């Protein structure tokens, strides 16, 4: 009995000790970046551990680029006794730069908010890559230029730490707004017709008669660019045209917009896209640059924008020569108010598919409903509200295969296009090239690439660091930038490279419309080169999760104005006011002298 007790205790001690050691071992694995993912395929090569954000654009591009790089450096030795490189990829939605120096990955492809990236840089957690960005050329990969020369010079500062050195490279950009069903628009005649022919539709909201295409008259209006035969033909160029279009669609039994209930904040993508197009490049950029001229709101009038809606026109003034001290006027700009007002109207009129009220209506279901538009019992929806990355995610979920099955077309390619946004809140409809307007677009997120600074903390990692840096250089070559877009249908942010026919031909129709939109118009990137922005970036950077789109009432945060209209009974003016700034509030809470 005594012997049994002794053996029993001994056994427990061994088990406990083993569990302690295993715990330590597990920590060790985590520290060295074991994690999930691809797994390195060659122990005799230098292993580059990559953390790739799991949403948005997927990992296919990374695997393909990695294979090309492997092939290119297969005879090169980065570490003693090893030849070439191999990759260990972790592709997960939880990939983040936060606490980078305690993670075991070498390279991070991220979609964090900018302030989080800056915080890591300032902590010293990110590797200085100034040498490969501005000092070395890409000659090893056949180009005699630096990475820096390829990055938009207006935004190079954004990739640097406060010490003026480079720590990040831009990754991808996505456009905010909505995507519409081209076939549905053609079939139902929702495009705005050229002139006063086609289906006449009197819109009570605008008090005007608008003309839409039909089977007998299919000549579309010229769109923002004023040129016939381009992507924006038939799409609204003024806010009232957009209102009339939605009203007409609703009249025909089609709900104009749909957004996921589990991500009601995606509505902010539509607000952002609409605001930017209405504002134009200079005014929209002024939010972060604190320069130029803006039309800003000083109060609310008693004149209704659309009769009977209780949505009123703003009182505006023009502010010139903005500085950081008057930067609040850019945030209070009229275009932002009009975007809020449109969403309130959409809420009132039921132009957003009612499932946004259901928290279980996920983004995947919303995508599926839009892709299977009107098929298999699904409701007819005009457009899907989300960032342009949604298309890649839908492909990842294999949703276009459902379309192939249910549509009977035998094709996984659906005719979808980016919804071209109106560029004026007045009545100045674009009729030709003479009064054409730029349709400014906005990059809806911050996506960057970084190398882990902890590689530099201990000696002996020189080879891995060099391999990581070479990989980033390789990814910045013209051909790799093209390959990236051809694979993902998404453009690289801030990089200057040519998206030519060889790239476009690889893309689906939707992705092509995005590329042409981006090529023909300027893109606003939300980086400001001033002390106020650097200290308080979050207050003036707009994205779905941005506080600027999240009105607070009675201490409760609403994730989009739509939610405040719906749950709190608030209106556009109230939401605009609480997300804007008075001069006093700005000077006390936000402003930092340069």
């Amino acid at each position: 009995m005594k012997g049994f007790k002794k053996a029993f205790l001994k056994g427990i001690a061994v088990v406990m000790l083993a569990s302690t050691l295993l715990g330590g071992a597990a920590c060790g694995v985590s520290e060295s970046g074991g994690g999930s993912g691809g797994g390195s395929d060659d122990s005799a090569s230098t292993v580059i551990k990559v953390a790739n954000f799991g949403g948005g654009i997927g990992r296919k591009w990374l695997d393909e680029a990695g294979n090309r790089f492997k092939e290119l450096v297969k005879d090169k030795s980065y570490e003693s006794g090893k030849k070439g490189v191999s990759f260990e990829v972790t592709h997960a939605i939880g990939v983040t730069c936060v606490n980078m120096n305690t993670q075991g990955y070498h390279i991070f492809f991220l979609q964090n908010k900018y302030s989080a990236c800056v915080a890591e840089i300032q902590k010293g957690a990110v590797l200085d890559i100034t040498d490969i960005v501005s000092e070395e050329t890409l000659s090893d990969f056949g180009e005699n230029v630096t990475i820096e020369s390829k990055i938009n010079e207006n935004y190079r500062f954004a990739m640097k730490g406060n010490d003026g050195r480079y720590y990040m490279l831009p990754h991808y950009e996505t456009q905010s707004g909505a995507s519409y069903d081209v076939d549905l628009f053609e079939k139902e005649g929702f495009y705005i017709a050229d002139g006063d022919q086609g289906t006449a539709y009197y819109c009570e909201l605008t008090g005007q008669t608008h003309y839409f295409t039909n089977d007998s008259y299919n000549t579309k209006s010229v769109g923002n660019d004023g040129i016939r035969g381009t992507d924006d033909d038939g799409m609204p160029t003024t806010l009232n045209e957009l209102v009339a279009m939605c009203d007409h669609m609703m009249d025909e039994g089609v709900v104009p917009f749909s957004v996921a209930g589990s991500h009601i904040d995606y509505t902010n993508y539509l607000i952002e896209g609409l605001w930017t197009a209405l504002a134009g490049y200079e005014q929209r950029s002024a939010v972060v640059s604190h320069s130029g001229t803006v039309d800003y709101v000083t109060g609310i009038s008693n004149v209704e924008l659309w009769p009977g809606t209780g949505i009123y026109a703003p009182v505006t003034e023009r502010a010139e020569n903005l500085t950081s001290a008057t930067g609040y006027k850019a945030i209070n700009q009229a275009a932002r108010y009009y975007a809020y007002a449109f969403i309130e109207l959409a809420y009132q009129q039921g132009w957003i598919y009612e499932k946004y009220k259901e928290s279980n209506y996920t983004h995947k279901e919303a995508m599926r409903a839009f892709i299977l538009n009107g098929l298999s019992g699904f409701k007819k929806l005009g457009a899907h509200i989300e960032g342009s990355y949604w298309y890649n995610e839908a492909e990842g979920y294999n949703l276009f295969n459902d379309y192939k099955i249910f549509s009977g077309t035998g094709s996984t390619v659906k005719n979808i296009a980016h919804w071209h946004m109106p560029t004026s809140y007045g009545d100045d409809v674009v009729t030709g090239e003479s009064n054409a307007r730029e349709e400014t677009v906005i990059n809806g997120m911050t996506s960057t690439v970084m190398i882990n600074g902890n590689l530099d903390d201990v000696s002996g990692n020189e080879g891995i660091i060099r391999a990581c840096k070479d990989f980033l250089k390789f990814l910045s070559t013209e051909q790799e930038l093209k390959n990236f877009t051809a694979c993902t249908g998404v453009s690289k942010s801030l990089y200057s490279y040519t998206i030519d026919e060889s790239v476009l031909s690889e893309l689906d129709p939707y992705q092509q419309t995005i590329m042409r939109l981006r090529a023909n118009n300027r893109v606003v990137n939300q980086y400001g080169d001033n002390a106020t922005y650097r200290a308080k970036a979050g207050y003036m950077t707009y994205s779905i999760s941005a506080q600027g789109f999240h009105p607070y009432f009675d201490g409760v945060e609403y994730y989009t104005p739509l939610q405040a209209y719906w749950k709190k009974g608030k209106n556009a003016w109230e939401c605009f006011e609480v997300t804007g700034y008075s001069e006093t509030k700005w000077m006390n809470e936000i402003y930092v002298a340069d």
Partner: protein
Amino acid sequence: MYLQAKGNGSAVRRVNYRKRARNIFFISIVAIPVLQFCICYIYVNINSFILAFQDYGYAQGSLGFDIKFAGFSNFEKSWAILSERTFMFRHSLLLFFWTTIVGLTLALLFSYYIYKKYPMGELFRVVLFMPKILSGVVFCLLFKYLSNEVYVYVAKTLFHVEEVQGLLDSQGTKLGTILFFNVWVGFGIHVLMFSGAMSGIDESVVESAQLDGANAIQEFIRITVPLIWPTFVSFLTINFTGLFTNQMHLHTLFGNDADELSTLGYYLYVNSHRGELVATDKVPSFSVLSAIGLMTTAVMLPLTLGLRKALRKFGPSVD
């Protein structure tokens, strides 16, 4: 033992060997908890205390931060946040009332029912403990679908209600549904512990009370509750300490999007996830969040100690 061993070399070795084995056993048992205590309690709390009095800003012209002594400015900001968001306290107190006051009382009654081996008692035990077998996340997900999709489907198909929203989507039923969920999910463990404690009650005490003519209610109030009172006090105290840290399962059910239902615990959890050292938007900095933590600790510590003392002093007795 020691003296005997001193005169015999092999015995000394045996004693030392035993001592060493005991030490290894002891260390292997306590090493991880002690390490965890040092990191997760001592380090975190000291760091949190220091943070509450610091203000971080980015260094200009170099990497790093400008760290300044903030005095009580973080506490002022915390106070402003808490004053504006009083609904969080209301939700925390509601949760405490339903899960602890109501939930524990019901659990006591159910446990007594099971303990007395009344009909289907064992079935109740299994059914009530079932949620605890499933992963919390899985159970939350199931509940979410039951109270939204299934509820809407049943209302529409069986009761032909045209306009109906899920229980967790409707503004009118959301909070009540979550409170019910919290009571339900915590019920099983309470019942299990109470019925376990009750099964340890000496049968002779119960028989004696019955011989003296005590009915079931009298037995429950005068015998059962006093004898398991220490277990009840433990539960009450533990739940009370979690008054301002309990998240009400909001994050599992809604992610970061449940601000209108926030408890203080949920607010701290979500914002410590979203926050940074330097606040560049409305999300409070870690310093402000630390100050909130200290303020609530200052309130809860004396209250908890007081409650425990009061429960022990004024609790029921078997005498």
